């Protein structure tokens, strides 16, 4: 660890801190349908969409109708994307003439982008045509993120309203999130990326002769634009196979900074917007403080683990002062690799700028654990916020009773109905992650897919399902996931992680909206102070993390002790 490294990290958090408030305030206005400086341009477009789709923006929906709209929209999006991927060979903008995708890969990929996961069982530059990337994947990068924001908005309104049945209109929320938030930001960030040297072209790959005289195919395409929304929408699916470790996706330390800021920006600002909209900015800051706590500790832990290096390699003559540089890009270094790793997994982004499988065991444990905590730090756009609220509901319920009142969150009483749906949502992660991991660990043909033996192999499986169920999409590497078994099970895990979570959340929203907002008093459990921040962090670790401890013990933790003992597998 070095001073420069820590300064880089400190600067990053300061930039985030400065960004959260202005962006959050803008989003709160734009998402509520209030006038912003972009309204003159985007307002007519928005109304045009409603007119074309026959949507009455003033007509609001109850939670069930809202959930049906979300599901219908996602199913339609899945069907369209699946068709594009299967029929790729017959569609335009395919300079390299790629064929259609296999059914299980098309299923996996379509589910992956519709659920905002962007798990990639394929290599982008060797599989996807420009049309598939732009009209298929990138479209979902926008709208799947917008759908997440919509669900978060519905939940936000549940706290604002009293005795209401309506939560807003899904179509309106989704359109506004795309048009007023994601699109303008994507334009700005894409232009900045172009400025930093990311390619933006419709040309295919370039064949080059290297210095050694070998032939090399250099992939090109509309990379900058896709990179922008990939981060802003916490999608994470790279244009290129090695994602943001590739110099075309992430050429410099500066672009690396922009990558991290872009991926954190919308999610973090949405948490601030939540506070603004429910009339308690302090509540927004409290949630952000929990997020920052985990991200700082997570980043520090990865940074420490990576600079501590690997005694097995040191024994082979590698300079221990270098720490562990395997799988990392020299232009980013350990500090910025650590920050990227923590952010991409604390969020449900899933882009990577280093190979997580090459991190030291503890360095690899951190991203895995951050995902298992439920992707709430600050999580995917929208999904992170509503995940955090679910944890907050559990936290006020468990500890709120300790002040001698029926627990309340922002004036809404938390009772049996909310608890039922919150537990339903919370059950999904262990069920999908541990269930599929254990099944894969028992099935010989699934075990055959792992890249490394021993505990590291188990980590590969565990990481894959963690990433899928958490709608993260980052990969540990090593695992050959493009098989019918993994493509199908990972697809199911992604669907569960997205919709089996979002629907109970909407049910909670419906129930909360109908309740009267109780005014706070001295007897009310305070949910915006440091005490609550500590409590919520504790609940997230204990409820979100404890269930995975045995599995982690058999994966990265064992591997760590084995590494210290010099044991290899």
């Amino acid at each position: 660890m070095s001073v420069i490294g820590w300064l880089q990290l400190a600067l990053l958090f300061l930039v985030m801190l400065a960004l959260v408030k202005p962006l959050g305030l803008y989003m709160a206005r734009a998402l509520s349908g209030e006038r912003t400086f972009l309204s003159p341009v985007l307002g007519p477009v928005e109304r045009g969409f409603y007119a074309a789709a026959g949507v009455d923006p003033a007509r609001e929906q109850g939670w069930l109708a809202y959930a049906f709209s979300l599901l219908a929209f996602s199913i339609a999006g899945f069907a369209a994307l699946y068709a594009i991927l299967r029929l790729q060979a017959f569609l335009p903008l395919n300079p390299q003439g790629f064929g259609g995708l296999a059914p299980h890969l098309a299923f996996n990929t379509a589910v992956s982008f519709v659920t905002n996961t962007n798990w990639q069982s394929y290599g982008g530059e060797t599989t996807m045509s420009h049309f598939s990337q732009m009209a298929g994947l990138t479209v979902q990068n926008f709208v799947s993120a917008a759908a997440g924001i919509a669900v978060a908005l519905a939940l936000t309104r549940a706290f604002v309203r009293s005795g209401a049945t309506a939560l807003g209109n899904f179509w309106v929320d989704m359109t506004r999130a795309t048009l007023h938030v994601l699109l303008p930001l994507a334009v700005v960030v894409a232009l900045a990326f172009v400025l930093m040297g990311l390619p933006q072209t419709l040309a295919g790959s370039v064949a080059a002769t290297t210095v050694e005289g070998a032939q090399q195919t250099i992939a090109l395409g509309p990379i900058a634009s896709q990179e922008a929304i990939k981060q802003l929408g916490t999608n994470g699916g790279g244009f290129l196979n090695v994602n943001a470790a590739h110099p075309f996706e992430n050429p410099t330390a500066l672009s690396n900074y922009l990558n991290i800021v872009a991926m954190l920006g919308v999610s973090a600002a949405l948490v601030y917007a939540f506070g603004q909209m429910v009339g308690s900015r302090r509540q927004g800051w409290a949630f952000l403080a929990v997020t920052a706590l985990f991200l700082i500790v997570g980043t520090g832990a990865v940074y420490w683990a990576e600079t501590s290096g690997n005694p097995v390699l040191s024994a082979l003559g590698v300079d221990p002062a270098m720490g562990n540089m395997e799988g990392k890009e020299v232009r980013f270094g350990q500090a910025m690799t650590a920050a990227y790793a923590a952010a991409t997994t604390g969020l449900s982004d899933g882009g990577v700028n280093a190979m997580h499988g090459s991190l030291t065991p503890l360095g690899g444990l951190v991203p895995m654990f951050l995902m298992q905590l439920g992707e709430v730090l600050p999580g995917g756009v929208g999904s992170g916020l509503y995940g955090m609220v679910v944890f907050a509901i559990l936290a006020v319920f468990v500890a709120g009773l300790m002040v001698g009142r029926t627990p309340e969150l922002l004036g809404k009483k938390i009772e049996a109905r909310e608890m039922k749906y919150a537990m339903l949502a919370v059950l999904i992660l262990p069920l999908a992650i541990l269930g599929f991991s254990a099944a894969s660990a028992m099935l010989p043909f699934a075990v055959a897919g792992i890249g490394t033996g021993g505990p590291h192999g188990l980590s590969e499986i565990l990481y894959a399902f963690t990433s899928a169920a958490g709608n993260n999409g980052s990969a540990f590497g090593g695992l050959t996931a493009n098989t019918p078994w993994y493509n199908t099970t990972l697809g199911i895990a992604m669907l569960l992680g997205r919709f089996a979570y979002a629907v109970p959340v909407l049910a909670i929203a419906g129930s909360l909206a109908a309740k009267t907002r109780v005014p706070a008093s001295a007897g009310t459990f305070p949910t915006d102070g440091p005490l609550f921040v500590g409590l919520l962090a504790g609940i997230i670790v204990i409820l979100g993390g404890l269930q995975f401890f045995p599995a982690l013990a058999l994966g990265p933790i064992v591997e760590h002790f084995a590494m210290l003992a010099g044991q290899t597998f």
Partner: protein
Amino acid sequence: MTTLTSRSLLDPAILLPAAKAAFVKLDPRQLVRNPVIFVTEVVAALVTLFFLRDLATGGNAVFSGQVAAWLWFTVLFATFAEAVAEGRGKAQADALRRTRSELTARRLTGGREETIAATELKVGDVVIVSAGDLIPGDGEVIEGIASVNESAVTGESAPVIRESGGDRSAVTGGTQVLSDVLKIRIAAAPGSSFVDRMIALIEGAERQRTPNEIALSILLSGLTLVFLIAVVTLWGLAGYSQTVLSVTVLSALLVTLIPTTIGGLLSAIGIAGMDRLVRFNVIATSGRAVEAAGDVDTLLLDKTGTITFGNRMASEFLPVAGVAESELASAALLASAADETPEGRSIVALATGSLGLAQPDARPDAVVPFSAETRLSGVDIGGRRLRKGAVDTVLRFAGIAVGDAPAEFARAVDGVARTGGTPLAVADGDRLLGIVHLKDVVKPGIKERFAALRAMGIRTVMVTGDNPVTAAAIASEAGVDDFLAEATPEHKLAYIRNEQKGGRLIAMCGDGTNDAPALAQADVGVAMQTGTQAAREAANMVDLDSSPTKLIEIVEIGKQLLMTRGSLTTFSIANDVAKYFAIIPALFVATYPGLSALNVMGLSSPQSAILSAVIFNALIIVALIPLALRGVSYRPVGAAALLRRNLLVYGVGGLALPFAGIRLVDLAVSALNLV
């Protein structure tokens, strides 16, 4: 309370039947209502089967036998906790039931009297009860007045007056008429009378789970499912690492992880909460009401009897110009010598007390008693005609026109009225001496009580029939947050509805029939036992002591109930961390020796570690039974401070304690060579 609890905890009269009942409660059909403990029982049965297999096949039966035994103990300790809580109520219910055995009734049918068993009475029957008889059922006095001993219900031995009409017409079955004869119309069918309901409630027979208890059960069931998934899948993950985990150790892991502590004590906490109310002589008709009491935002308190003593008392003498204070005081003292009203006594007390005057020994020549018509009282003594009374009547007595009264006299009268007091004028013949300030005296300590309530976030609202000026003065002196002056029952009802519309929960107490609608509307309505049948029916609690300040204790008990649940839940979940550190290394250390680094407690062997965690998990239930029954101590310090304290004690404590506890059990296990 503490001594009461600890004594009755060790009381063999409760413990022995409870131990027996604990086994009866093992019936899975009963236990299924408690998912956490039900899962524990299923797992215990499963491990027992594996123990039998081990016995037959020569496996490690010593280990699996002990694990099975401690799993059964875990279940038994949980059922025992519930049985103890119920046992304490049962003793009380038995005493009540004795009072109502073999009652007979003298029923009036068409003018004829017939003697029948009380159980044959129907609603609407009219019965005659004379001195010495027990009243056969709940009802209303329609004729007569009598003194009634209600100690069977209230525990209070002083007899109370029951009469037809008005607010003292309700009588309770099982109580005894001491004098005179009452004609009573029966208002409750046998089996549904007040005492019957009381017995059922105290015994817990009618116990339904309260909303918060249901929500908590959902959380606990959800956690149980989560850990079930974690443990079952661990078998598969371990298989990858060529480790075969036995059902015994996985069962041990599961039971230690699921929240057995709170699961085992949950119903005991609820029963104990009701029981605590009974100890305060309050009967709640449902557990829901007790829980709601903890949530109350606004207390509606009657001024008279709760905030003030209810009698106006002399607080100062205000003489007119040219009259010494002592002269006014001695005249007032003489005028009040024969006055036995509370006001009169308070004048005597003030004059002889703070002014140090001697009791007059001269006998008055004539006494003029107070009457509502004259609004004047006094004495004729030694030729002096001393009178005290309402200002206008005294002025008339002294022959002074209202406009001719001295200016400073009129100012003093106004001043007293403005502060909510009552001016009492004193005259000696035609000479006006001054006024006595009669004040509605606020009970000592009540202001601090309200401040404490405010710290808890509870607003107090004073309800009074006084005019707004008087009400405001008393309200500010007592330190209530708001007041409702010239309150009619309709006002109260409207006030409650309005508060509830804002999402607040209201508690109030009342006794009259006209209070009934408001009592029914309030979230927590406490009726006085001395009140009318209508009030008692409308309320969801009845205070046997008929003390209006009881509302404050009820709120505290409600809060304590919720706090105890929350604290033990937090404790239970926090415990899991240490259990992981005990069991996970024990399970895998054979495959991966490196994992022994996680054995931070230094437990002696894998089997000892697992057994110790299971034993600790079972024993902690027993250790916490007293806390569950007594309740977590409550202090009115505001939510933030309470949370900080409880989080420290039960959260951090719950994290740390099992590390020490499991280590200690492990020392014992290895010292005794149990595995």
